[in-house]
């Protein structure tokens, strides 16, 4: 976590251990901390505090956005989303499809950008929600979200627009009104906050059925005893990460660029899967022709470099990335691709060391 986050959370795990819904003094202090955290969170993304639903993280927020919208009190039941979304969105859409709800999955171009015409074509009178990830977790492809949201709303004002902004938060300035979205997913551990603490921004007046029914916490949108320490940590990390964005964009972006330049200079037949423009500063997806990614990842790990291959299945095996397949790569090409992520604490020296190790292994595996 970023410096100071654990210290901010700690009192709410150790001392102020009250249930924020209780009526005694400790509870009041917990409740106060919770609502103060909510106000700070709302301020960071330009929303009202009442529009923040605290969740256990990105997966829950994505589930709540899609299921909550499709199963709400309105008659609209349909979901439209994109082939390169996170599994938390795609699997939820698949579940709703299996329930018999209309679901459309739209394709992307080679750079990962969603085709706006296809997206609009998929939106019908029955569509409850359109879900488009802002920054892709595997490639760093950035969608033109403000334009997508505006175009969808122009077509049909009653369609809700959701974005999974989990990977976007550390680099993109977020103002929910300027973005024009109704639902937005964030999670703490992607920007130096605690694991298990996330949120769904829900624009006021948005009809949403909760996933978790019960005591009616979070204004009836998410029941269950609050994780007060998590909320405090989330708020602190959001403030720190938002303030750090200008540095993050230039510094981490430059570290990533140097890494890319070094690796590609040493590997003439390498392929950059991440698009040249509309890319985040902290992702890089590379293809190493002739080398299977699971072998390269194993060797990188032994050499102290942590990278990944898209997503892993339940057993931990690398799977063929649906994101790369969605961008037009064959399964074989996807199996040659590795994703490198850079963080707020990445250093230039680390990145160059990693590039040299990588090039040495590529040489050896050829």
């Amino acid at each position, binding site marked *: 976590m970023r410096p100071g986050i654990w210290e901010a959370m700690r009192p709410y795990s150790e001392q102020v251990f009250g249930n924020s819904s209780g009526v005694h003094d400790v509870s009041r202090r917990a409740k106060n901390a919770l609502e103060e955290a909510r106000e700070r969170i709302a301020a960071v993304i330009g929303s009202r505090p009442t529009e923040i639903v605290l969740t256990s993280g990105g997966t829950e927020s994505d589930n709540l956005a899609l299921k909550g919208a499709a199963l709400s009190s309105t008659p609209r039941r349909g979901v439209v989303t994109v082939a390169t979304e996170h599994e938390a969105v795609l699997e939820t859409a698949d579940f709703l499809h299996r329930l018999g709800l209309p679901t459309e999955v739209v394709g992307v171009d080679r750079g990962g950008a969603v085709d706006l015409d296809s997206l609009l074509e998929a939106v019908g009178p029955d569509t409850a929600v359109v879900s488009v990830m802002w920054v892709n977790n595997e490639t760093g492809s950035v969608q033109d979200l403000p334009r997508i949201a505006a175009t969808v709303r122009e077509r049909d004002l009653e369609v809700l627009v959701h974005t999974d902004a989990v990977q976007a938060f550390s680099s993109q300035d977020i103002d929910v009104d300027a973005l024009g979205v109704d639902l937005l997913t964030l999670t703490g551990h992607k920007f130096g906050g605690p694991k298990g603490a996330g949120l769904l921004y829900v624009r006021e007046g948005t009809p949403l059925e909760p996933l978790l029914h019960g005591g009616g916490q979070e204004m009836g949108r998410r029941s269950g005893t609050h994780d007060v320490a998590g909320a405090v940590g989330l708020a602190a990390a959001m403030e720190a990460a938002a303030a750090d964005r200008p540095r993050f964009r230039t510094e981490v972006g430059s570290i990533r660029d140097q890494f890319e330049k070094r690796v590609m200079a040493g590997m003439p037949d390498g392929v950059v899967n991440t698009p040249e423009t509309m890319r985040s500063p902290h992702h890089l997806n590379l293809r190493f022709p002739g080398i299977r990614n*699971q*072998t390269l*990842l*194993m*060797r990188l*790990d*032994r050499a102290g470099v942590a990278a990944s291959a898209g997503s*892993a*299945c*339940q*057993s*931990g*095996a*690398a*799977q063929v990335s649906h994101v790369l397949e969605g961008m037009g790569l064959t399964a074989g090409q996807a199996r040659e691709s590795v994703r490198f992520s850079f963080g707020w604490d990445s250093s230039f020296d680390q990145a160059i060391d990693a590039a040299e190790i990588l090039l040495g292994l590529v040489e050896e*595996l050829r």
Partner: protein
Amino acid sequence: MRALVAMSGGVDSSVAAALMRDAGHEVVGVTLKLWSGPHGEAPTAGCCTVSDAEDARRVAAQLDIPYYVLDYTDEFRGGVVDRFVADYASGRTPNPCIECNRTVKFDRLLNGLDDFDCEVLVTGHHARNRLEDGVWALRRGEDRAKDQSYVLSMLTQSELARIRLPVGELTKVAVRAVAAEIGLRTAAKPESMDICFVGQGDYRGFLRDIAPGAFAPGPLVDGDGEEIGQHLGIAGFTVGQRRGLGLALGEPRYVVRIEPSTSTVVLGVRDELSVAGVGLAQPTWTAGIPVTGRLMAQYRAHGEPVPATLHQDRLLFAEPQLAVAPGQTVAFYDDDRVLGGALIADTYR
């Protein structure tokens, strides 16, 4: 030495990893993901389930060795499952675990050793592999009752030179004792028996799902060629089978032969199962030199070896054998030493 240990999640491969580590080697653990169901789910039976991979992962963590799950589902489907289906569809009785060893586990991992930056491949098989007078000798495991040398009979010198089988030097009781002593969570784990991609032991249901074409109906005939009934597809039958023939006849009847070209299943009495010898395909020799003459032959994983004479691609049993099925592997032995192995192409009476 840098050792790649194939960890199935069972006690044998767990102990193999522990023994290598304790012998001072640098150990990397891997589990192979070989099969997933229609929705990508891992198998629930056999040797490669999610909980097995989880067991392997936890053992690796306990031993403080790096651990990876490698995906070989494409290779497994092509080399093992498609072949399993094709074999049944053409009236043979395949052994998918041997095919998996041959075409996926040993082939992929041995070929990948350099890439994984390891020198040897270690498995938890109960068999012994030692350098004797400059030759790698594959022998039955110390625990004769748990011996698995039969399923390794297709290995050759260049492969044996890069394989270590530390568990084969111990009895199963000793293996469990080692596991218990170092507190491995797999110490008391029961052994897996099912075919991993079939599950629940119902291979006919699996075949019906994956290869409905192999279930064309055909005649059940007696030894004289007279039709005595109909069946729903030859893939439901294996030579020597007595149950599930869908017939009520006075004397017990067995499947004695399957004729795929006409989808005919030939039934007969017990004596007709008797086989004098078999024709061989794809023979391999552990020492690299073809063997002929008198030897011991074992044609079932848990069968007893029987005396036989090998001449080129024909094996003649000293005594007639019952229910020897084409598609099965036969392993050749000199006492406890594996000489080689082959597939049974056909049988003759």
